[in-house]
């Protein structure tokens, strides 16, 4: 394990980890109670009916297999009706009557499981409480009179929509499928791209009431075992009533209570998650959420897009430069503009200074108020654009464009220069790459910079920059420095930061994240075939 022993203890806060672990992780999966399944179906049924009293969406189907009484229980609407139909056909019509006579009733359920249940998967359960829970986790259960065993039948068809293209992370080239709400589909999308037996998945049931299935996925020899263990610990520490979306889980398990910057990446693209798994990260899939979490996360990742890896690397280098420029503009431009026009008027070249001063001549507000009011208008438009139903959206656009672009300038309330500055800022805000979370976090950075710039000028901007740098470099994502490989500087891993190295050159995985196997590629660089001596036949 190379020099990790030397470097990592600084970044992994082992001490505080142990302290937290001592509060006692909840045993996952639940249940805590245990109740043996009785041989008497009547007793079992009574128990279940009592437990599920006053629930109209649970189906109790009683039927006879030959002479033996059976009971199937499931949640209406979550079970594939064709498959359940098969079950009843097989048990009620296809089972020869002598079976129930020949087989002792104790073993009948197991016998049926082996011979007469045409399902992908069944689980044999001896605990009544667990069996009850499976009903709530979209499964069908089967009880046979005389057998102290319950069968869990996987006939799940959760309500879902069809495959769609990614909404937030769209690309021109590259795969176009995106995650959906059901967990099984999402894990399948990942597994279908990564057919490695060492891709492991572990199940957790999170949510005391919601019983949400959460799957932790990682490639065993690529992921750093310490980081995976940390992830397990944090997942088992979660004790909440319901887990509605992966973003909630993200907030519960990230390294800090508060941070402006996303410490865990959220993605709706299977190809991105697979790429992260191959870099030694782990993924957390939450049932009911079309976004998968991956971590440890670095700041620079939010300035990358999936397409960066499919496009010409030379073009990507240029595009990434623009993204870093966009980051600078989105965070600093309004503050810088106010600072320069109110403190450092001598910095502007002569033609520009007259243009700015002339444009501001009719504006009744100080530059700071001017900038703030347009920024707030922009934020309101942004928010309105997201929230409003699509039918009304057009109206907002028209009003926004008219108010901002035309009326305000013509009325002399804001200057053209300021509108251009804020427009450039707004555009840059969305040109950041794949980081919608970063884009929304940056809004606050921008406001703080604006205040700092208008109070202290360039000095204030520099102070603000310094403060954010201190914050950023102090952040960790599952113990990995957030600003790596910039701080700590790791030149060998700069191949995917400012530029993206061609694939044949990306030979190693990021050492701060990945575990043992750091070799990513051994492909020789592309080269023309060796020159052959001119053949005889050609000379003719």
């Amino acid at each position, binding site marked *: 394990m190379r020099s990790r022993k030397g470097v990592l203890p600084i970044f992994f806060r082992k001490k505080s980890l142990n302290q937290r672990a001592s509060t006692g992780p909840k045993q996952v999966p639940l249940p805590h109670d245990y109740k043996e399944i009785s041989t008497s179906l009547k007793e079992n049924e009574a128990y279940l009916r009592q437990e599920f009293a006053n629930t109209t969406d649970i189906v109790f189907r009683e039927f006879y297999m030959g002479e033996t009484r059976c009971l199937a229980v499931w949640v209406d609407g979550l079970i594939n009706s064709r498959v359940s139909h098969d079950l009843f056909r097989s048990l009620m019509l296809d089972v020869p009557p002598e079976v129930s006579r020949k087989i002792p009733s104790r073993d009948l359920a197991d016998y049926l499981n082996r011979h007469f249940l045409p399902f992908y998967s069944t689980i044999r359960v001896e605990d009544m409480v667990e069996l009850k829970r499976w009903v709530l986790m979209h499964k069908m259960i089967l009880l046979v009179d005389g057998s102290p065993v319950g069968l869990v039948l996987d006939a799940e068809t959760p309500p879902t929509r069809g495959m769609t293209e990614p909404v937030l992370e769209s690309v021109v080239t590259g795969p176009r499928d995106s995650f959906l709400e059901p967990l099984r589909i999402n894990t399948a999308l990942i597994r279908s791209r990564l057919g490695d037996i060492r891709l492991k998945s572990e199940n957790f049931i999170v949510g005391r009431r919601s019983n949400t299935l959460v799957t932790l996925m990682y490639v065993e020899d690529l992921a750093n075992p310490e980081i995976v263990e940390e992830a397990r610990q944090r997942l088992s520490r979660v004790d909440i009533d319901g887990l509605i979306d992966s973003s909630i889980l993200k907030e519960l398990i990230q390294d800090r209570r508060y941070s402006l910057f996303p410490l865990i990446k959220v993605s709706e693209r299977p190809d991105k998650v697979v790429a992260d798994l191959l870099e030694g990260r782990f993924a957390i899939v939450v049932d009911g959420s079309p976004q998968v979490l991956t971590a440890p996360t670095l700041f620079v990742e939010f300035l990358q897009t999936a397409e960066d890896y499919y496009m010409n690397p030379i073009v990507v280098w240029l595009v990434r430069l623009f993204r870093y420029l966009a980051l600078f503009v989105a965070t600093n431009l309004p503050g810088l503009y106010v600072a320069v026009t*109110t*403190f450092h008027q001598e910095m502007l070249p002569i033609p520009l200074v*007259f*243009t700015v001063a*002339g444009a*501001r001549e009719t504006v009744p507000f100080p530059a700071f108020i001017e900038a703030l009011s347009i920024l707030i208008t922009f934020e309101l438009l942004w928010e309105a654009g997201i929230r409003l139903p699509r039918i009304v959206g057009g109206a907002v656009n028209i009003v926004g464009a008219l108010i901002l672009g035309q009326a305000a300038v013509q009325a002399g309330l804001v200057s053209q220069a300021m509108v251009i500055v804020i427009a450039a800022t707004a555009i840059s805000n969305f040109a950041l790459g794949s980081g919608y979370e970063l884009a929304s976090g940056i809004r606050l950075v921008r406001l703080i910079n604006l205040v700092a710039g208008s109070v202290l000028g360039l000095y204030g901007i520099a102070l603000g920059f310094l403060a954010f740098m201190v914050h950023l470099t102090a952040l960790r994502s599952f113990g990995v420095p957030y600003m790596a490989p910039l701080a700590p500087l790791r030149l060998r891993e700069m191949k995917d930061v400012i530029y993206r190295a061609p694939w044949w050159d990306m030979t190693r995985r990021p050492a701060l994240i990945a575990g043992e196997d750091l070799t990513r590629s051994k492909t020789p660089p592309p080269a023309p075939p060796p020159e052959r001596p001119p053949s005889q036949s050609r000379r003719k």
Partner: protein
Amino acid sequence: MRKVVVTLLLPLLLVTGGCWDQREINDLAMVVATAADVVHEAGNEQVRLTLQIANPIALVPGQGGGGGGGGPGAPKAFWTVAGTGRTVRAASLSIVERIPKPIFFGQDRLTLVGERAARLGITPLLDRPLRNRETRRSMYLAIARGEAKRVLEVEMPTFRATGLAISNLFDLEGGRQAIMPVDFGEFAYNLSTGTTSPAAPVVEVVPQTSISAEDRKSLGAVPQAIKVSRVAVFSPGGKLVDFFDEKETLGLMWVLNKIKTREIIVPCPVEGPVEPVVMGLVRSKSRIIVHLEKNGLPSFEVKVRTTCDLWEHFGTHPGLLTPQYYESLERRVNTSIEREIMHTVRKAQSLHADVFGFGEEVKRQHYPEWKRMAQDWPEIFPVVKVTVKAETGFRHRGLSVEPVTARKEHR
């Protein structure tokens, strides 16, 4: 909790200290050019400061000015205001009373000093701009023939402010012909050496060379224009001594490395001065080498290396194909350069004005000896031996070879 409170309160601390020097950009009277004169007023010498101030609203298309102050009645883009006082600062204070906005010198591009003020001594006029943190040392300095105020009052048809026009001219055409831009810091530095005679370009108000018939009718007098050329030479003490003419200025510019490009007219190697050849200077670099003579006096060797193109051959004869022709041209350019420089050297020595900074060169190259002679430099400079060595490389002769008629004769 206390941490949170402190964190929230800390930024407020910044607000208490900040903002005090905040000024909105449109609340400033932006000075683009300053003219300083010394006038005899109310019984004693007074400084008269003239400021050229921008009126930005007239400079923005589509606002206020309707095209930027073109039509009659539209607000003027620049205006001048003058004030007098015992000192420069006092003069600008008297202006403060007359304009509604605080004066801002951060965009000042040009300082003009009137001839009379320069003759009386320029040093006191330089103090305020050098001491003030708004004013930039990279602004240009020029000496006005006559009153400096008159220069800023000239209305130019193409350029809205004379001050900006002059600084533009220095930016774009400095180093061509006898236009030698000198910035404020450079001038002040030369003055501070105590031995070098600073030189500054000269601005003159001249009548326009050509005006339309319509204008001639409507305007009574011939409109005025600006001419920038030549330099004014100061004594090491900061008093205007003399003006160089164009030829002397060009010689100075060779030595000071101020030439960017220019024409050098030499007589044709074949036909002589009847058919002059115009050589175009592409690059030039000069160096001053100081030698110490046996008698303890320094002697100076000015080395000029240039590259020239053939720009114009004003003649009819053939013969431009031979290498000898170009070698001869190079020799003629060399001679021309050497003559120009020597001419200036003799003029400077007769004025006792070390415009080249020869003294500084001795200081740099032979510091121990310089300490001995620094005191006597004003007496030494007029008698030092100066040699000039020019070395010209010919680059190319343009698109054509022989004069057009010459080609016909060959056929």
